């Protein structure tokens, strides 16, 4: 279909007939300012093709002029070699509703028939049909419009790609997919078996049975082990309980006991024989010992006698030597005593001389001390007198206080004077000293304050009495003077000068006191009492001894006496050592004598038991020989017994072992019986539980459960395989289904984006994703301009498809690329130009300047001819 002329009347602002004529087969462009009526033409044209003439809905009502009337549209178009005219008008009244279709100038149909025929001519279907798809209004950017648009696209795709069935598989495919998915959903999730599903139940059943089987197998093995243990225990018990075994054990025990008794009896004999040997040996040893002791006693008696004689001789000799030494010692002692007395007397004399000399010095010292003490006492007296005087005088602190108060008076006075009236007299020449006050000439040129009443005598004039008024300064001065007077009164002075003189005197006295204190310190550094104590310690002086020798003589006599004494001491020491030596020698010899006497006495005592020691010694030697012979005999007998003795330890071991066998057998029997009782209980318990039967049953149930599980798993695999096959087939069909659209779309896209590759949804026929520069993006995420361009390009592609099918439909764009910038719009113009080679494209736009470069046939709105 190709539109050639559109004529409107009574449509919105167009009351009079207007037309767009000369519309060509390729690209046509109508650019006009807003409100020029472009959209009115678009809407009217759309209504002509797609709105029933019987309709008076909002779309149709939107065409009615404000002034009212019946809108009518006339469209001339060509299709399949025929020239067609469609006339359609709408209105509220039936008379206003009309539809007429002309072919090659001949009216071929009216009203509904006209619209039916029109649908056949333009390939329209319900809700607009494929042609309606290609009408794009302002600002259409949505890629997924529903309703008529989608149906139209589906219709185009289906028409180029075959039956719908080929793409989707139809209801059967959907039913099969739904059933398979439902079956799978009932059993599994993406993560594994589904909770509460049969599959999960089977898995759990197998796991439970495997666990039960393992537990039962453990019990069965335990039962088998216990049975084996019981058989072994029974066999062992039977073996050790066999009578012949027991008899043999008891016989062996009796034999061992008998052998042990024999061995023990023999051992007793040996012990008896050994006792005899021991007795004889003891007796023999005792005899030998007595012989030895007697023999040694005789020797000792002889030796003791000789020693006693020698000791007696030595004592006699040593006693004589001692007596001599003792005499010499007594002599030396007497000499020493005399020397000592002489030395003592000399020393005493010397001391007496020395003491006499010391008493003289003490007297001098005492006198000096007494003098110092006297001076000190006097000094202290003076100090105390000064202290009394000082106490009567004004202290420096009191003076400072008075000075401060006087200062206050002075300050107050100056303040009063400063505040008081003053009198300055400037004498005239020749009148100097004519004014006096209190008899004193009032000096000239000096201000005289007059705080109080003042009387000036003026020579030759009389008196000038000055009486000032009351002022604040007088109070301060009065208070200061009162304070000063009070302070002076407290110190007993009437004037500050006397007070100050008093204080000056005190300072003088205090200086004197300090000097006296220094003197006292020099006289008695440690105080008067210490000085008195020192004096008290000095001896009372004695009178001089006229008989005393002089000191030199006394000292010489004392040295002489002392040396004599030293010589006597030496002699006495030598005598004492000699005496000591002699005494030691005598003591030793006397001790030796005492020892010899004791030894002799003991030796005699040893022999005193024997009347005849030698005879006794012979008798003893004879007895010893007899005992020696008896001992030899007994020892031989003992040796013989020992040689013949059975092995007692071996007999004891054999006996112990024989008894042990019996005991061990008894204990083992008891242990086995206990073990058998335990095993009987355990085996009986398990036997009651029928574990083997339960195991056999569980094993069979497990096999069955595993088979059921395998069946379900196979069933799931079958469903998964079927689902995979169905989905794969449908996906392949969809790819093929959208292939024609993609084929037309790609060249258009690449006019804008050189490497663009679209993903077209088989259901909607729209681009869902776009790949550019190897980046795939969801269309919904692209900008409004890009989506607007994609929307237009998809429609151009569908227009090309329709054209190829011989169902060419015009593409009508009413400001359809409003969001596209000027750079991109040139590329869109290229796309439009490319499509317009075999598709009629009518572009309505208000962007006159931009669309001037679109080229194509320029259209205008002009009054309709005739």
């Amino acid at each position: 279909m190709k539109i050639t002329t559109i004529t409107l009347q009574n449509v919105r602002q167009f009351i009079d007939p207007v037309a767009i004529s000369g519309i060509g087969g390729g690209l046509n462009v109508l650019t006009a300012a807003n409100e020029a009526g472009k959209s009115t033409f678009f809407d009217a044209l759309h209504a002509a093709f797609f709105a029933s003439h019987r309709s008076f809905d909002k779309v149709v009502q939107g065409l009615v002029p404000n002034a009212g009337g019946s809108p009518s549209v006339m469209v001339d178009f060509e299709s399949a070699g025929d020239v067609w005219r469609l006339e359609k008008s709408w209105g509220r009244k039936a008379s206003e509703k009309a539809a007429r279709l002309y072919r090659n100038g001949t009216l071929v149909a009216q009203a509904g028939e006209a619209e039916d025929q029109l649908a056949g001519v333009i390939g329209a279907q319900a809700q607009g049909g494929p042609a309606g798809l290609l009408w794009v209004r302002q600002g259409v950017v949505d890629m997924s419009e529903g309703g008529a648009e989608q149906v139209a696209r589906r219709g185009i795709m289906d028409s180029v790609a075959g039956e719908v069935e080929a793409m989707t598989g139809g209801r059967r495919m959907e039913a099969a997919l739904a059933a398979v998915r439902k079956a799978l959903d009932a059993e599994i999730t993406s993560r594994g078996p589904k909770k509460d599903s049969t599959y999960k139940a089977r898995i759990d059943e197998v796991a439970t049975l495997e666990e039960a089987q393992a537990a039962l197998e453990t019990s069965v093995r335990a039962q088998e082990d216990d049975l084996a243990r019981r058989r072994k225990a029974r066999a062992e018990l039977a073996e050790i309980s066999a009578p012949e075994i027991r008899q043999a054990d008891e016989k062996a025990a009796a034999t061992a006991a008998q052998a042990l008794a024999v061995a023990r009896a023999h051992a007793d004999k040996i012990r008896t024989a050994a006792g005899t040997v021991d007795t004889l040996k003891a007796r023999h040893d005792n005899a030998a010992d007595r012989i030895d002791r007697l023999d040694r006693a005789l020797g000792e008696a002889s030796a003791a006698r000789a020693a006693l004689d020698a000791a007696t001789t030595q004592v006699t000799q040593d006693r004589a030597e001692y007596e001599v030494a003792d005499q010499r010692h007594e002599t030396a002692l007497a000499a020493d005593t005399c020397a000592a007395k002489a030395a003592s007397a000399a020393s005493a004399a010397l001391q007496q001389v020395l003491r006499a000399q010391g008493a003289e010095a003490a007297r001098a010292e005492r006198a000096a001390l007494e003098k110092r003490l006297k001076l000190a006492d006097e000094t202290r007296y003076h100090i105390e007198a000064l202290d009394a005087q000082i106490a009567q005088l004004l202290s420096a602190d009191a003076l400072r206080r008075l000075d401060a108060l006087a200062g206050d008076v002075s300050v107050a006075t100056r303040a009063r004077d400063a505040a008081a009236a003053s009198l300055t007299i400037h004498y005239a020449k020749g009148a100097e000293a004519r004014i006096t006050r209190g008899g004193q000439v009032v000096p000239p040129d000096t201000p005289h304050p007059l705080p109080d009443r003042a009387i000036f005598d003026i020579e030759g004039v009389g008196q000038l009495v000055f009486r000032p008024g009351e002022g604040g300064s007088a109070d301060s001065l009065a208070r200061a003077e009162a304070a000063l007077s009070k302070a002076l009164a407290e110190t007993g002075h009437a004037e500050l000068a006397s007070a100050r003189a008093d204080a000056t005197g005190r300072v003088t006295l205090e200086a004197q006191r300090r000097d006296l204190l220094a003197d006292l310190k020099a006289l008695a550094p440690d105080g008067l009492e210490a000085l008195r104590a020192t004096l008290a310690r000095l001896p009372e002086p004695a009178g001089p001894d006229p008989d005393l020798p002089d000191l030199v003589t006394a000292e010489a006599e004392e040295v002489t006496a002392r040396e004599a004494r030293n010589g006597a001491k030496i002699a006495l020491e030598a005598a004492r050592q000699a005496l000591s030596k002699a005494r030691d020698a005598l003591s030793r010899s006397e001790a030796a004598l005492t020892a010899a006497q004791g030894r002799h006495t003991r030796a005699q005592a040893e022999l005193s038991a024997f009347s005849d020691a030698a005879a006794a010694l012979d008798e003893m030697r004879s007895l010893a020989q007899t005992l020696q012979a008896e001992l030899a005999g007994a020892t031989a007998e003992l040796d013989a017994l020992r040689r013949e003795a059975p092995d007692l330890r071996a007999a004891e071991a054999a006996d112990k072992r024989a008894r042990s066998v019996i005991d061990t057998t008894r204990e083992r029997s008891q242990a086995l019986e206990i073990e058998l009782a335990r095993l009987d209980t355990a085996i009986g318990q398990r036997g009651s539980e029928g574990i083997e039967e339960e195991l056999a049953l569980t094993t069979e149930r497990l096999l069955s459960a595993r088979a059921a599980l395998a069946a379900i798993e196979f069933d799931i695999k079958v469903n998964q395989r079927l689902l995979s096959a169905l989905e794969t087939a449908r996906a392949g069909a969809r790819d093929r289904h959208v292939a024609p659209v993609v084929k037309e779309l790609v060249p258009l896209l690449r006019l804008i984006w050189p490497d663009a590759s679209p993903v077209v949804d088989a259901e909607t026929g729209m681009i869902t994703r776009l790949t550019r520069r190897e980046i795939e993006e969801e269309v919904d995420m692209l900008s409004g301009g890009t989506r607007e361009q994609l929307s237009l390009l998809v429609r151009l592609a569908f227009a090309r498809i329709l054209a190829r099918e011989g169902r060419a439909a015009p593409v009508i764009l009413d400001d359809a690329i409003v969001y596209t910038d000027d750079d991109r719009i040139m590329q869109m113009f290229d796309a439009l130009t490319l499509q317009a080679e075999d598709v009629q494209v009518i572009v309505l736009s208000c962007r006159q300047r931009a669309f001037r470069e679109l080229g194509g046939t320029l259209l205008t709105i002009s009054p309709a001819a005739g």
Partner: protein
Amino acid sequence: MTAFTFLHSSDLHLGKGFGRMPQDLRGRLIEARHEVLSTLAKVARAHGAGHVLLAGDTFDTTGPSEQVRRQAATAMRAADDLHWWILPGNHDSLGGEELWARFQDEAGDNVHVLSRAAPVAMAPGVHLLPSPWPHRFPGRDLTAWMVDCATPPEDLRIGLAHGGVVDFGDNFDSSATIPPDRDKTARLDYLALGDWHGPLSIGPRAQFSGSPERDRFRHAGRGSCHVVTLDAPGVLPRIEQVVTGRFHWGAPTLSLTPGQDVTSAFEALLPSDRGARRDQLLKPRLQGFLRLSERAALETAIAEACPDFALLEVEQGELATEYEAGDIDEIAPSGALREAVDALFAEATAEGGDTETAELAQAALNRLWSLVREV
């Protein structure tokens, strides 16, 4: 000498739990095994036999539950007009000391647990030569001793043994194989054998009685026992097989081909008496090929018959689906669905491919066929 009649049975497997069976069927099968004791007693009495020989595996394990053991002992004790001669087999060997000790205590004097390989005088002039299993894997022929066992030549010799003369599978201990001519070498008038759960004749004098109540599909039909009469030493025994089992076990094979009336063929396998089906366990093994529609018809027939039976378990592992163009078209003549079908078909019919992959593809295709058939 008068004829000596006795009942020969084996492999009662009392206490068998049938863990692979559905829960509700399990109880019925267990109960049937217990009831077979009274059935054997009735058969013995009916045939004038005073002795029942159980040739091993009376119990399923050496550790049956107390209930199973005591109820078995009680049942035998109650039939005190009969002598029960019980040989421990591989399942209930003498290794189960606790079982046999308690059982002997609980059973009456008419119950004889044969614990030694030594001749026993069953009756005047009749000697029983038992070969009990000392434990599960004896590792030798337990009947060898019978050859050298002397009995008066004018007396009857009855051997009682458990084990295979050939490899029976199922934990078969080949070292314990019984020579097929043992009846001859041991001069036995009859060798009562156990271990094979179906009746099997090794020779005129050597017989497996089979289990009196079947317990597996390997041995079809209902359980039975042998009533044996020995007229005199050296004379061939007279043997009568008597049905004793309640449940019928069957595992028939059915070969199917495309174009066959599958429903009829399948139903022909089933007993016409629907009432009898309640005590039937059937495990048909289907072989051959079916088209998709036939397979669906088969599934319908199976589902229809299943509730009648104690157990109906159809094995279809050897039954393949044959796909024809019409079958494929029936799913989808064209389009995406057809592509999925073609992909699965290619996998299912690929030669030399992975078996599991082919099985999955075939099953997926069958399922798809079923799913789309309803749309």
